[in-house]
């Protein structure tokens, strides 16, 4: 079951910094002084969020780039976004 609103926008939390290095992504969470690493698919998703795409649009972008079906792409995106929200790395915007 999908728990993330497909029309929602997200952005990097103001207390976090994100950058891509060798295809992978790094979040520095300033409040906690902690770091999260996301794999290349995760980095791609975060970059799409930064381009102001909705979740629905991000899912489309994933299917186009990685040639996977929409249900799988949606599940991957939801899972990552839930984890990043819980960590304080991104916020709804």
């Amino acid at each position, binding site marked *: 079951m999908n728990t993330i609103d497909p029309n929602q926008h997200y952005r990097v939390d103001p207390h976090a910094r994100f950058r891509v290095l*060798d295809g*992978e992504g790094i979040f520095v969470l300033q409040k906690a002084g902690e770091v999260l690493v996301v794999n290349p698919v995760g980095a791609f998703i975060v970059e799409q969020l930064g381009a102001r795409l909705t979740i629905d649009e991000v899912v489309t972008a994933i299917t186009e780039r990685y040639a996977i079906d929409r249900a799988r792409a949606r599940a991957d995106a939801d899972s990552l976004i839930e984890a990043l929200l819980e960590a304080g790395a991104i916020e709804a915007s």
Partner: protein
Amino acid sequence: MSTLTLEFAQCRYRLTGLLPEQEELVRARFGALERAEACGHDVEVEVLHSADPHRFMPKLVGPVEYRISVAYEPSTVLVEGIGFSATIDRASLRTHMHTCESDEWFVDAFENLFRVLVSYRLFAEGALVMHSAAFSDGERGFLFCGRSGAGKSTLCGLADQLQLQILSDELNAVMATAEGFGLQAMPFAGDFGQMPMPTPPLPLTGLLGLRQGARPGLLACSQTEAVSRIVASCPYVNADPMLVEPLTDRAVQLTGRVPLRVLSFTKDTTFWKVLDREYNRPQPALSR
């Protein structure tokens, strides 16, 4: 009121406003760093006394660890801990320390503040202060970054059995040198290490993360993981919104030149054979 000047990593810190008992306590802990006042100073720490203990973080009962609180403002860094609060000016690092303590609690408070201050000073000089263990065999320096529970003290205990020179099992600094990167001991040791002498940094031969495993070995890791390990290990500055970006840049530079590998180790001294073999001493180009 008394004044005391401490020198560490080519920076002189002048403490003013000390009560005589505070001066003695600081001297007892950091006396190896004391310098004649006539030498001048780079950073001033003014100690201001407050009779009201309620304005500070209260003392804890029992052998518990606590974390100081650090807040980041555009022009200052605010530090609070048991029995003290302090304001550090970002530009000059001039510090005002308010305290109600003049016994052992004072020197603990000062040490906590000094860690922050030294971290900022060294960062401004291009260095990275890292939660890490570090030791040397006299020629090669090895640094193992990792936060609490990573195995730093365990590894230092094992290195101690091998009679390796332990810099610290808590905080060490990596600084750029003419030859590459150097390893600087810090005056803040945990269970191992000692007050650093004013010697040049050791060459940084090995930059490693730690993982306790079934057998000793070295594991490669991506530069992304390496950078994340470095950034996560740098206290204070990695939570400072004004320094996170340059910190990450610096970690990218460091790991681009000194690849970080992960040492898998067991609770015995066999890890040293792996390190000694992998990081061979440089051989002379020509020998007769």
